[in-house]
């Protein structure tokens, strides 16, 4: 069957068709499904991760305060369902526990990377299933990582640099300067510049807000300039003027969380929730997840094209792989069986030899035994003969003695006879 493809051309409409409602249909479907968003917060103990999330979403999520004595970095994840207007959001927040507390921090990166990859793995498994339900899938992949930097005044900590480098190819990173009320405006400016230069020179790719779109492009460009965001979090309400605002009150003044002059909290919220949430999800799926998938499948031995540049279908690959695998299994079974048989033969031969040896020894012993017996018999016979000889001599001697005696007694008679 030959399929003829005509060239595509654009047509003019002569009336209202109505497919301009398509975006609305998409939106309606999504809203009915509900959205999900997963945030990972990485930062030292006590740096203000939980407080910031509370402030961002204007709710108090339950949190236990961690102590500094965890032996290794762990991750704690909690899922909440929020609703605003008619939009439902399933929010998952993952916190690191014990990050930066150990004396040796070599192993700090591993648990976090493992967690992120595990979520990708779950999705990949689902994708490769025969019977899959991607539309209902509970997406746990991390959409954004908020990396909390301690405001030490000079620059990043070494652990931060190393960690961000490892994370940048797996998740969207947004660096945040926590507890920013400790720095004056100039110090903050210097620190931000220093951090951005260092990240660039070390080759860390942080999330850049997309600025191609006309609507949000401008806002995003200006937001890009504020990176890394210097934030202050607080759930306490303080009366400033005649309003109640969220602030931290000090003896020398009150830091207002939503005041642009005081910190970049509003920019963060704008960026994260109001403008780019969907783009973050998109990037996670199309960039980070695809990269993971590609690497993983390559590891498993799949290729897009074989040496002859003919595209394989996945099915064929599967079959070929399966057959290979089974063949190998058989092969190995055979060789193992061979080995087993050989071994048995060997041991049998050994055993036989040993038996023979035993027999021989037995024969030898028996012979020895018989010889001894013979010798003894001979000796016994000799002894008996001796005994007999002795007895005969004894008898003879007795007889002689008896005769001698008789002769003696007869002799005198003879002599008397002679005398007469």
């Amino acid at each position: 069957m030959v399929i003829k493809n005509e060239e595509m051309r654009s047509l003019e409409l002569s009336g209202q068709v109505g497919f301009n409602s398509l975006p609305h249909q998409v939106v309606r479907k999504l809203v009915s499904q509900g959205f999900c968003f997963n945030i990972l917060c990485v930062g030292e103990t006590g740096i203000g991760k939980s407080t910031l999330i509370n402030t961002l979403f204007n709710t108090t999520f339950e949190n236990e305060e961690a102590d500094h004595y965890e032996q290794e970095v762990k991750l704690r994840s909690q899922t909440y369902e929020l609703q605003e207007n008619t939009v439902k959001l399933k929010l998952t927040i993952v916190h690191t526990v014990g990050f930066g507390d150990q004396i040796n921090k070599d192993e700090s990166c591993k648990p976090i990377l493992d967690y992120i990859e595990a979520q990708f793995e779950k999705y990949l498994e689902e994708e490769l299933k025969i019977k899959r339900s991607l539309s209902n899938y509970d997406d746990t992949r991390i959409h954004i990582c908020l990396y909390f930097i301690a405001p030490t005044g000079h620059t990043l900590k070494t652990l931060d640099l190393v960690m961000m480098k490892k994370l940048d190819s797996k998740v969207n990173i947004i660096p945040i300067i926590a507890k920013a009320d400790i720095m004056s405006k100039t110090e903050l400016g210097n620190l931000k510049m220093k951090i951005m230069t260092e990240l660039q020179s070390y080759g860390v790719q942080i999330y850049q807000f997309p600025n191609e779109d006309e609507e949000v492009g401008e806002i995003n460009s200006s937001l890009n300039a504020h990176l890394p965001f210097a934030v202050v979090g607080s759930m306490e309400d303080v009366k400033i003027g005649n309003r109640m605002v969220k602030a931290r009150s000090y003896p020398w003044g009150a830091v207002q969380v939503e005041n642009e002059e005081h910190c970049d909290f509003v920019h963060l919220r704008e960026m994260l929730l109001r403008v780019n949430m969907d783009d973050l999800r998109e990037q996670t799926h199309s960039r980070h997840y695809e990269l993971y998938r590609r690497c993983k499948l390559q590891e498993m031995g799949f290729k897009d094209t074989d040496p002859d540049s003919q595209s394989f279908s996945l099915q064929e690959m599967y079959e070929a792989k399966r057959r290979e695998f089974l063949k190998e299994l058989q092969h190995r079974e055979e060789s193992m069986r061979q080995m087993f048989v050989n071994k048995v033969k060997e041991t049998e031969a050994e055993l036989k030899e040993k038996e023979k040896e035993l027999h021989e020894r037995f024969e030898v012993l028996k012979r020895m035994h018989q010889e001894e017996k013979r010798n003894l018999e001979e000796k016994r016979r000799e002894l008996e003969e001796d005994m007999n000889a002795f007895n005969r001599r004894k008898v003879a001697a007795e007889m002689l003695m008896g005769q001698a005696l008789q002769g003696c007694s007869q002799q005198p008679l003879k002599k008397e006879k002679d005398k007469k």
Partner: protein
Amino acid sequence: MDAIMLQEKLVERLLCPRVRTARQKEKQYVGFATLPNQVHRKSVKKGFDFTLMVAGESGMGKSTLVNSLFLTDLYKDRKLLNAEERINQTVEIIKHTVDIEEKGVKLKLTIVDTPGFGDAVNNNDWKPITDYIDQQFEQYFRDESGLNRKNIQDNRVHCCLYFIPPFGHGLRPVDVEFMKALHEKVNIIPLIAKADCLTPTEIKKLKDRIREEIDKFGIKVYQFPECDSDEDEEFKQLDKELKANWGQNNNPSLCVQECTPFAVIGSNTVVEARGQRVRGRLYPWGIVEVENQSHCDFVKLRNMLIRSHMHDLKDVTCDVHYENYRAQCIQEMTRFVSLCEKESDEEKSKLAQDNRMESPIPILPLSTPDADTEKLIKMKDEE
């Protein structure tokens, strides 16, 4: 009236026996009440020295605080490393020595800096710091046991300010381990650095937590001493007032112990606040004054460290830490000597044994202390 001014007045009274003679007209005036005077004159002539070590992660504000404490700029042309360069950083020791003078009293101040502490990804090595402290003790020991003791330089570390970051919930494992490694060698004063990121309730919570953990882990930090019982009644009263003044504004009965560790803020810049020029930090939401007692404990730290307890810190270093070191050293040496002699005993005759019995003090010829102490050091290292 300022508590420090009170104290100074009292000491001045001690130094002016004229006031006292008025009261002692009945008794015979012997005159040794001028001793304080003589001591004062001599010590001014001799001059003082003080060695202060600062330790803590980089970016905690150590240099700023030292500059604020001594009102000079000790750190000129400092090179700060990038994060990338510090990934495998080891701890270094840098000494800055300055001569400062105030009202005729000269002070030779040495600040021992420890750049690189806590910077690398793996931070289990602060041996350079403990080695430095031991070295200073050893040198003093050698000088003290030497024949010519005229010009002994005292380079022993008198005090170590340890900066705890305010970002956490309490002490971290690296803080605990470090303080435990040093608490028997030097007077440790823990400080909460950059305290302007904590509200007053948070400061109190953190201080309580840190004090609890210091107790729990058995870390012996420097305790500011109470008054002696045979002191002058007036001095006792003064001391009580001093302590009361140091309490929080709304709770004057708090004693000094409850304010430790001090939460400090430092600043190199002068700002205008309430019509005065003060050292402070300027924020969009207010101005933090370094010398304002309700903002931070900087004044308390300065008073304790410089104005009242500097000499006590030196005394504790001499009497406690150095003596411990010395006793340990000598014990090691006798053990070493007897070990050596035990080995040669098997070959030599009884004479060697008699030698050993004679002197409990090592018979090392003092003119060559180097070879022996080096052997000792080697032995210690092997151990």
